[in-house]
């Protein structure tokens, strides 16, 4: 079996991943999923349902807010932008990740060193 990212694991980080994309500017569903794929170097593609669930969760938690936009061709899209609370949350998750990387790394990179 080829090496693959554990989907259970990545699901725990999808929220800050989306916040990271939104830090670069407000965006909408498919564009966010494209950015995630790009940033991951094609190693991870988020499914529509996972992405939508994350948006709903983030909005419920006040970390993003949605607003409607109509494109030039008339297509209606739901856009999301990060909120100040979202920025704080993202920074907290970044600190948590550094700590996680440090601790787990002691076991996974040169076992017990």
């Amino acid at each position, binding site marked *: 079996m080829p090496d693959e990212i554990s989907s259970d694991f990545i699901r725990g980080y999808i929220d800050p991943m989306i916040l990271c994309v939104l830090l670069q500017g407000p965006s*909408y*569903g*498919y*564009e966010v*999923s494209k950015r995630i794929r790009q940033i991951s170097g094609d190693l991870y*593609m988020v*499914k*529509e*349902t*996972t*992405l*939508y*669930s*994350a*948006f*709903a*969760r983030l909005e*419920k938690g006040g970390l993003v807010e949605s607003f409607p936009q109509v494109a030039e061709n008339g*297509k*209606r*899209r*739901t856009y999301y932008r990060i909120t100040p609370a979202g920025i704080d949350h993202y920074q907290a998750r970044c600190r948590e990740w550094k700590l996680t990387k440090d601790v787990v790394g002691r076991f996974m990179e040169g076992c017990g060193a």
Partner: protein
Amino acid sequence: MDDIRDFLESVFSKLPQTPEVHRAKDELGQMMEDKYAELLAQGMPEKDAAKAIIAEFGNPDEVLESLGVTPQPARKWHPGRIVALVLGVIAVCCVCWVAFCGRAEADPHAGNVDATIAEDFSSVDVSAACGDVVIKSGDVARVSYSGAANTSFEYEVQDGVLHVTQTQTSSAGTQASDGIVITVVVPSTAELSSIDATTQLGGVDLQGVEAARTDVSSQMGDVDVRDVDLSNATLRLSVDMGEIILDGNEVSPGTVVRGTGERIVDVSAEMGDVTVTAL
């Protein structure tokens, strides 16, 4: 895009109809539309693009959980519902009995059929009103029918699709389905793009036959799918009133999605059990 819309409709029709769920459907539709447009712009044929998008859709239960809705369990058995069901079953039995006893004219189309199919086909479409549908693999394509009076049975290959249709012709109420079996044998060498099989009254039994897209369902009866390779398939199982048994284990009823493969396997029963056993 119609395939995608139909797919979304079918997934969402089984979920509780709240404003949040409608919003989810709307936005998921937006995402899928954008993705579809991009795949087409990259030169992918429409059918392939639709297939790819449907296969990568994911699990609708995840959406419900994030909205704080517990995925809908099988309908609860209120006493009133049980009484209604029992009365309904008694009524159906009475009508069936009358129909059986009361059959007057012999239907010229009824009777047994056991035919070899000479033309090649890449799709199978079976539609039955009352009777069991069995689809299995074999050396040569065949269609057989052990029927009853007051039913009609037709089959033909048209544009690469094997159509098999069984209906009841008697107007004297619902025909009982005992002993009525429609069997389709698909050559083991065939590569099918789709299998559709549905019966209103009776079971569906799919044994060891695979297609890029499979959709088997029954309104009143059990649906069995066995000896299929599910390692590269997205399996969607759904029961309204019955059990789901996957590889010998009972799974929570309602709608269950397993796997994210390219091949789509949809199995549903309104009033009956769904049993799936992989290869």
